[in-house]
């Protein structure tokens, strides 16, 4: 018996699952990182699937993403998708610099690991900044909307084109002051400016008279911007999912940046050089690519679909 045990401890039994005595041929740490990533995959899948549930439940009144995310910092006018496309590019780029850092870690080239790891941190920081801008813009709001008793948010239009509450009221939405309008003010303004009308939540345009009648009967308040209870873009759940899913992802990016900073300090101190391998860089790299992977799905299901 003892001989068999000794042999098992000394010899590499290759055929056993083909990884020998290590069936997976992966270290404990790497394996545990993978298991954590599986659980995180299921968490994010649940978020995105429940987003899909709500979207299938309210298909007629769910906001169009391209009406919501249509602005680019420092640029005027409507540029749907461009800003998130840039954010996606930044995250893919930081994934590439991460792979390069891992690759040079295998080759034990400390200076190059420091260079590419630092660039990855810069990429992550730029992404977080972009997300902060996106959140700020989303919370401040863009065109304004009018809530109804059935929570079908309607928007001001000019003919068959979306306009905004600010344009109707002759106010500047980006002058830094806190605006507040009442439903009565909006109705008075619609009566005075017959070129304006509304687009209902199901994207039907009403004539000026029908719009006034509809608002008199149904409107409850004028919504400017977004919070967890109400948002000017449409159904309240839309903003809740936006804050929750992009927020949870942003928290992952933030944690990733912190982890990267910690291992960068260790690399500079020579901890992994002394240890003889850069496996820690590889493990944090796995996490970082996962964050990129999640964003690929968030990008599709929140902004494209």
């Amino acid at each position: 018996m003892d001989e068999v045990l000794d042999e098992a401890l000394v010899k590499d039994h290759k055929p056993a699952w083909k990884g020998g005595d290590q069936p997976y041929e992966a270290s404990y740490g790497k394996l545990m990182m993978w298991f954590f990533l599986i659980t995180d995959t299921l968490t994010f899948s649940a978020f995105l699937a429940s987003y899909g549930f709500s979207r299938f439940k309210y298909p007629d009144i769910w906001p169009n993403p391209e009406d919501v995310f249509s602005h680019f910092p420092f640029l005027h006018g409507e540029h749907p998708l461009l800003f998130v496309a840039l954010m996606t590019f930044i995250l893919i780029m930081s994934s590439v610099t991460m792979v390069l850092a891992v690759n040079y870690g295998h080759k034990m080239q400390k200076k190059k690991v420091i260079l590419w790891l630092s660039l990855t941190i810069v990429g992550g920081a730029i992404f977080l900044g972009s997300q902060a801008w996106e959140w700020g813009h989303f919370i401040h709001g863009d065109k304004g909307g009018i809530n109804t008793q059935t929570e079908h948010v309607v928007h001001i239009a000019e003919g068959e084109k979306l306009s905004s509450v600010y344009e109707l009221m002759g106010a500047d939405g980006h002058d830094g002051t806190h605006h507040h309008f009442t439903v009565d003010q909006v109705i008075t303004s619609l009566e005075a400016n017959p070129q304006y009308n509304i687009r209902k939540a199901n994207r039907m345009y009403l004539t000026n008279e029908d719009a006034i009648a509809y608002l008199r009967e149904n409107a409850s308040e004028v919504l400017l911007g977004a919070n967890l209870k109400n948002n000017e873009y449409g159904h309240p759940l839309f903003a809740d999912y936006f804050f929750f899913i992009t927020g949870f992802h942003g928290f992952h990016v933030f944690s990733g940046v912190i982890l990267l900073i910690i291992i960068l300090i260790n690399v500079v101190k020579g901890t992994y050089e002394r240890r003889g391998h850069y496996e820690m860089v590889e493990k944090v790299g796995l996490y970082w690519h996962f964050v990129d992977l999640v964003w690929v799905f968030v990008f599709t299901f929140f902004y494209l679909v």
Partner: protein
Amino acid sequence: MASETKGNWWIWKVFWILLFITAFEVALGIIKPSFLVDTIFLGTKLINHVFIILTIIKAAYIINQFMHLGHEKVTLKWTILLPALILVPYLLFILLNEGFYTYLKI
């Protein structure tokens, strides 16, 4: 490690593939070709199926190349992929189906 002898060219290859697919998605999202938007297939627009397929291709490249799963032992590959491949479609099926069902009930 295979990557030690391979150099870095494969990293940039994957980068260009991911960038090209993303650019293509954004272009589709802005242009919105009418035959893709107006055709409904399996409960959603055809363009959404195109987006989802392209997203899965991107995900496959990230997992296989960047996360190196393609170079791990077959047993490890399936240990990691199977829970997601079984549970996620199941979750999606249940929730999307029920979402549509609750829509009909209003």
